[in-house]
């Protein structure tokens, strides 16, 4: 007996969006903070 594949794509989209937002967001935050203090 085959069951239909669950239609839960919105959760997947939400997760991928949140992940991207957090990672890109942090990258931006770091870029801004490192700009303010030039260092090596």
């Amino acid at each position, binding site marked *: 007996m085959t069951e239909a594949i669950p239609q839960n794509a919105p959760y997947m989209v939400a997760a991928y969006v949140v992940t991207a937002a957090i990672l890109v967001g942090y990258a931006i935050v770091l870029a801004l903070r490192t700009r303010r203090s030039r260092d*090596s």
Partner: protein
Amino acid sequence: MTLVQRGRWLTGIGLLLLGGVYLRALAFTPVELHQGPAQKIFYVHVPAAWSSMLAMGLVGLASILYLLVRDTRYDRFAAASAEVGTVFACVMLTTGPLWAKPIWGTWWTWDARLTLTLMLFFIFIGYQLLRGAVTDPAVRARSAAVVGICGLVLLPFIHLSVYLFRTLHPQPIVLKPSAPSAPPEMVTTLLLSVGVFSLLYLGFVIQRYALGGAARDD
């Protein structure tokens, strides 16, 4: 190339590759029959968990090295790794419930692994709160190192509890003693994603480490 520039390059490349992983996961990896599309959250959730564990492990390692040789660079690295680890822990803790809701029917459950990854998050937070609460840099480095080492040692007990506690959480598929039991394309996508997340970890930590050298002590 300065440290900051190196970090930025790595981060930039990492983010681009992340886009590639997204594409592969969403368009070129098969949909799992029982869990549906939501199963693909696996490809961002697991690498995030891996990165935060890696971050914690390196905090612990750097802490041990600091206490042994008292080189402040180790302390600086530990601080950087803790902050980056917190970021990945946030990804882990948001994608986890988003996966749990469609699959298990509930946003959260207090099973062993979920609870204890929440604890990992708290360790990171506690570590950084402690750093913020101590003013003297030497005392701060020592205290943070102590917490860092204890946090690291706690991790195996976290993983151990998973095997003892009857849990809703999917049994470890890749990192269990026997061979991985998922189809090869899925394993490949996962491994690629883990690689990209690790690259991002590196890029983030390098930049954050560079920040630590600024006059404003961190």
